[in-house]
C-alpha cells in the first residue's frame, strides 16, 4: 500500500494547496443548495395538517441540529487523532470547528424556541432533549474558552482534546433522549433504518437543506483552516512567500 498519501494528509502545506481547488465548488454548491431548499420549503410545500405553517422552521432547525451534533463528533475524532498521532493539522481542525459548531448549536436552540412557542405554547422547557442540547452549547463554549486561556499551543491542544473527548458522551444522550424519557420534543423524523415519517413533498427540501448545510460547514471549515495554517506555519518559507 502506498502510505505517502497518509503522510501528505497531515501536511498543512499539502492541505492548503489542495483545498484551494475545492473552494469554488463548495461555495457555489452549498449556497445554491441552501437557497433552493429554503425557497422550496418556505413557498412550495403544503402546510402540516397539525402544526400549520410553523412547521416550515423544520428546514432550518433539523439541519442546524444535525450539524451541531456532527461537528462535535468530528471534533472528538480530531481530538483523538491529536492525542494519539500528534498531527498538527488535526488540532488546527479541532480549533476552527468549535466556533462553527457553536453557531449552529445556537441556531438550533433559537429556532427550536421559536417553533416551540406556537406549537407547545412555550419557548423553553427543561426536557431532556432541550437540556442536553444546551449542554452541548456549553461544551462548545467551554472548549473555545479553554483554548483562549492557555497560551502554549501544545498544552492548549492537549487540554482541548481531552475536554472534547469527555464531552462526546453527551451526543448519544441527545440522540436517544426522545426515546429514553418522555419529552415534549417529538421523536426523530428521519431514521436510517426506517422509512421517514414524512411526506415526500416535505422530505425532499429537508434532505436538500441538510446536504446544503453540511456542504456549507465544509466550506467554512476549509476557509478557517486555511487561515489557521497561515497563522501557525508563519515561520516556514512557503507562508512567508505566500503573504508577501
Amino acid at each position, binding site marked *: 500500500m502506498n502510505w505517502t498519501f497518509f503522510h501528505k494528509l497531515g501536511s498543512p502545506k499539502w492541505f492548503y494547496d489542495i483545498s484551494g481547488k475545492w473552494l469554488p465548488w463548495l461555495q457555489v454548491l452549498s449556497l445554491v443548495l441552501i437557497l433552493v431548499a429554503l425557497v422550496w420549503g418556505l413557498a412550495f410545500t403544503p*402546510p402540516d395538517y397539525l402544526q*400549520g405553517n*410553523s412547521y416550515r422552521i423544520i428546514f432550518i432547525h433539523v439541519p*442546524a441540529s444535525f450539524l451541531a451534533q456532527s461537528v462535535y463528533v468530528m471534533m472528538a475524532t480530531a481530538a483523538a487523532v491529536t492525542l494519539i498521532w500528534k498531527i498538527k493539522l488535526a488540532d488546527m481542525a479541532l480549533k476552527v470547528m468549535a466556533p462553527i459548531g457553536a*453557531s449552529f448549536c445556537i441556531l438550533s436552540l433559537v*429556532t427550536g424556541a421559536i417553533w416551540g412557542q406556537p406549537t407547545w405554547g412555550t419557548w423553553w422547557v427543561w426536557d431532556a432533549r432541550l437540556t442536553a442540547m444546551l449542554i452541548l452549547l456549553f461544551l462548545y463554549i467551554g472548549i473555545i474558552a479553554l483554548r483562549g486561556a492557555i497560551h502554549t499551543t501544545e498544552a492548549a491542544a492537549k487540554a482541548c482534546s481531552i475536554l472534547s473527548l469527555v464531552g462526546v458522551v453527551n451526543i448519544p444522550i441527545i440522540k436517544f433522549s426522545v426515546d429514553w424519557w418522555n419529552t415534549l420534543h417529538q421523536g426523530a423524523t428521519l431514521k436510517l433504518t426506517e422509512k421517514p415519517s414524512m411526506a415526500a413533498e416535505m422530505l425532499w427540501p429537508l434532505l436538500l437543506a441538510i446536504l446544503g448545510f453540511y456542504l456549507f460547514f465544509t466550506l467554512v471549515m476549509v*476557509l478557517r483552516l486555511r*487561515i489557521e495554517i497561515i*497563522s501557525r506555519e*508563519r515561520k516556514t518559507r512557503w507562508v512567508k512567500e505566500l503573504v508577501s
Partner: protein
Amino acid sequence: MYFDSWSGFLAMEGHGLYVWSAYAIALAVIAYNLIAPLMAKRRVIVQVRRQVRLVQRKVIVNEVTTGSGDDTENRTERQEEGLESVKRSAQ
C-alpha cells in the same frame, strides 16, 4: 407555489412572525460564518507580514551596529539601507 398571494405568503396564516424570524436568524448565522473567516484572514496576513518585516529589520540593524557582513562593498550598501529603515520607523 402553495400561497395565493404575497400577503398570504408573508402572513403564513398567523405563523409569519415565527417562521420569518427563524429564517432571518438562520441568514444571520450563515452571514457570520462567511464574514468571520474573511476578517480573520486579513488580520492574520497583516500579522505575518509585520513579523517578516520585523525580522528583516532586526537583521539589518544587527549588521549596522556590529558591522558584520560578508564584504565591505555589500556592507556599506546594506548599512545605508538599514539606517534608512531605522530612521523611517523612528518617524
